[in-house]
């Protein structure tokens, strides 16, 4: 029996590593482009999904950004806050000046100034408008005070300074508006945790939104999936376009979220600056920055991809040619 020429084209298609990589790159490029085109063919539906993802992302990211700004601001305000060290009546002006010099040696003290009871009374009369009250008293009730400007301190550092000051001889009491700094720090920590939790929950939300959209896409493209499987497409071949779709949804949502945050910054920048200037702070509102922006885009894409993967895992295997 004479054999005709065999059709061995499929086997002749040998591959080197280079050609394999090249064709993989071609496949990914083509799939990505087709997936994007497919999304753009239904602009309204795509825009709605992207908007939902964008809103889900903008909430936690915006909150984190706000907290970041508040943290910077609290540090900034803490830097200019003052500590009043009230001296006992027995401390003389000379002793107080020595104390001032000692205190200025400390690393956490920027500046110290002695305000004698007389100077205190003058300031009180000048600024409070209650000079008559003071005049009515037979003697000056004000103690000598050392006004300290500490270096930029965190809550723990401020606590150390406070207890050191209270331990000094001749010091009656120390008044530091530490409580509000501490409360703010605690509040920020708490809010930070809440934001992290919110971020986690809404990230899951983004993955599920994408997953559900992809599930619908899989249903809509059932015929195509069957044909691809019939002509020898692997599960990975079938899944790839959906994974790209998911990544594009996530990326689109992240771009939307970034734009919203940028807009918000633009709106807040002016009033915030005016307010901060009134408080004598040179603090400036911080946006996402290039690093944060890149992280947002990458995070959004990865979440979309993961959501699609979740959906593809669950639904693609069920579609088999029959």
């Amino acid at each position, binding site marked *: 029996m004479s054999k005709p020429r065999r059709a061995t084209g499929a086997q002749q298609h040998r591959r080197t590593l280079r050609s394999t990589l090249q064709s993989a790159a071609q496949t990914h490029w083509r799939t990505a482009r087709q997936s994007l085109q497919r999304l753009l063919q239904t602009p309204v539906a795509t825009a709605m999904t992207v908007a939902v993802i964008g809103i889900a992302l903008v909430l936690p990211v915006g909150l984190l950004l706000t907290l970041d700004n508040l943290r910077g601001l609290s540090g900034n305000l803490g830097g200019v806050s003052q500590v009043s060290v009230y001296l006992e009546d027995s401390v003389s002006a000379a002793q107080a000046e020595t104390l001032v010099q000692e205190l200025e040696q400390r690393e956490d003290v920027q500046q110290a100034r002695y305000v004698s009871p007389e100077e205190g009374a003058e300031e009180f009369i000048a600024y409070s408008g209650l000079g008559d009250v003071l005049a009515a008293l037979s003697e000056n009730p004000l103690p000598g005070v050392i006004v300290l400007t500490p270096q930029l301190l965190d809550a723990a550092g401020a606590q150390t300074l406070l207890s050191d000051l209270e331990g000094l001889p001749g010091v009656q009491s120390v008044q530091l508006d530490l409580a509000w700094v501490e409360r703010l720090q605690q509040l920020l920590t708490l809010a930070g945790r809440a934001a992290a939790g919110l971020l986690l929950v809404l990230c899951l939300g983004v993955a599920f939104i994408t997953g559900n959209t992809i599930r619908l896409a899989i249903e809509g493209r059932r015929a195509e999936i069957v044909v691809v499987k019939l002509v020898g*497409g692997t599960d990975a071949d079938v899944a790839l376009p959906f994974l790209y779709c998911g990544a594009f949804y996530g990326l689109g949502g992240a771009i939307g979220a970034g734009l919203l945050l940028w807009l918000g910054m633009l709106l807040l920048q002016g009033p915030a600056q005016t307010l901060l200037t009134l408080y004598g702070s040179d603090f400036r509102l911080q946006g996402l920055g290039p690093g944060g922006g890149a992280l947002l885009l990458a995070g959004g894409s990865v979440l979309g991809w993961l959501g699609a993967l979740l959906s593809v895992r669950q639904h693609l295997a069920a579609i088999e040619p029959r």
Partner: protein
Amino acid sequence: MIRFDNVSMRYPGGHQALNQVNFELADGEMAFLTGRSGAGKSTLLKLLMVMEKPSQGQILVDGRNLGRLPRQQIPFHRRRIGVVFQDHQLLFDRSVFDNVALPLQIEGYPKHEADRRVRAALDKVGLLRKEKMNPQQLSGGEQQRVGIARAVVNRPQILLADEPTGNLDPELAAEIMQLFEQFNQVGVSMLIASHDLSLITRLQHRILTLDQGSLVQDAWQGAEPAARRPRP
């Protein structure tokens, strides 16, 4: 190339689709599979595509036992087999060209090579000038030819066809069969399911007849089996 050893197929509902089927198709051979509808023709083809697994017996394709084929190997098995469907199974969201290119894209052919092969396949079925059209714009016969081009574009060793002329008038049906014979002449093994007896008895090939899941006749039409000579 294809060997069925005592293959039976019973669907979960209890329907006995195939019953103790034995036959062998040699490398480069062409055969028709006939019988009334419901006789098991489609089931037999589905078993070859591993869309179903036999409940008994074994199927060998090119020496591979399909029953032992791991799930992840099924796509690679399918790449060695071209299939033509009665309902064409074309995708209407892309051009004729892209439909035919699908198997090559999946196999990861470089673009220039794929383009060349797609054009060769379309040329073979006489549709080169319609490559940019949507399959929906084509007639039934033309759609079937697109399906055939897609089935042969990666030069499979085996070509299966399930009622490929089912919806076509006799003239078009004869044309399609002619195309199949041309592929067979270059060495492709072929198994074509068809209930159109008047058409397939005119062609001189082996005919396997199924009746209620059993292979009741296995005969050569016309000349002896070795005479797989080129037809004019």
